């Protein structure tokens, strides 16, 4: 994890507080937010990519076999994928502690 806002000294800031590492927000684990998790039933999945396209957090990725899975590092558990899946292949289950 790069230096966070509580570590950086003023000298370590870039000129104009510019951020020069594009997309470094990807270090942040937004997956910590969720209380529900999507679980895909690959037997029902038709590999259409609907869940992939509708995820606001780009947290769904295509596997080598062409199925789609949630990246639990980022998934906030909003349930859009489960709701939009045309074959209801995705179910939202409670996160266990």
């Amino acid at each position: 994890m790069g230096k966070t806002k509580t570590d950086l000294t003023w000298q370590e800031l870039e000129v104009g507080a510019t951020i020069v590492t594009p997309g470094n927000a990807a270090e942040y684990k937004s997956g910590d937010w969720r209380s529900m998790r999507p679980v895909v039933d690959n037997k029902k999945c038709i590999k259409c990519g609907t869940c992939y396209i509708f995820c606001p957090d780009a947290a769904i990725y295509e596997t080598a076999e062409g199925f789609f899975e949630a990246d639990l590092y980022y998934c906030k558990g909003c349930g859009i994928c489960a709701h939009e899946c045309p074959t209801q292949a995705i179910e939202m289950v409670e996160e266990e502690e």
Partner: protein
Amino acid sequence: MGILEPTNVYAYKLITKKDYFAPGHRACQGCAEALAVRLVAKALGRDTIVASATGCMEIISSPLPFTSWRVPWIHVAFENAAAVASGAEAGMKVLMRKGKVPKKKITFLAMAGDGGTSDIGIQALSGALERGHDFIYICYDNEAYMNTGIQRSSSTPYGASTTTSPAGKVIPGQTTWKKNVPEIAAAHNIPYVATACPSYPIDLIEKVKKAAKIKGPAYIHILSVCPTGWRLLPELSIKAGRLAVETGVFPLYEVEDGRYRITVDTGELRPVNDYLKIQGRFRHLDESMIAKIQARVVQEYEKLKKR
């Protein structure tokens, strides 16, 4: 007939897998505005420079020292996204003309919310459109000042309850009708104006790509469902956007050199109540208000069809 049938789900696989708007951003669960930003970033690709206004998307994507942006991005203030984009576009034009920067096609995008566009940002938008800069202006419309906690804007629809237009005992929510900013943009006689919604991702991406190819200003108004502010379950964000289109509340159309065309025709309009009843911000509406909304929606849709 739409650009692509919404039911052709396999079309989604043709969209690029590259994401120029990185995950790890701090948008609420189910934020359709973040989804819209993600789709726009896919449509525009690598050679884009973004000037953003203050707002939800700016705050959630750039908390120092983190950024979700994989393209160059600048935020200056609330009301001047169009002006900053104008300066960037003009500056780059000169630098390329003088040979200081190698010539290549770079798309300039100004992005702001409805507050930063139809209220405080209207002046800068109008100026930029009138001056004819070669850029795209995208308004991400979640129908209130959501970033500061759900206050009404001139884009808040009639009847909606917000913290500054609350559904009170005497005055039941927003008493004015939504300002028609796409029409204002079209009145500037710019080459391209469009409305879009992330519930129709192919339509949205095609429009953004079209806008990028246009020489001169393009304006795209994207309805961005906000589960937090509209008081609906996050999982219904996409459905709500779809209902907005299917009921005629937010028709998807484009205006190319003054020629109007509805791009997604879902057939006969569904009753508006299908759309209103799933949102907590409309929970207080009585029959007469719903009827008023229904009448107005039909009236505006008929006007649009005639153009």
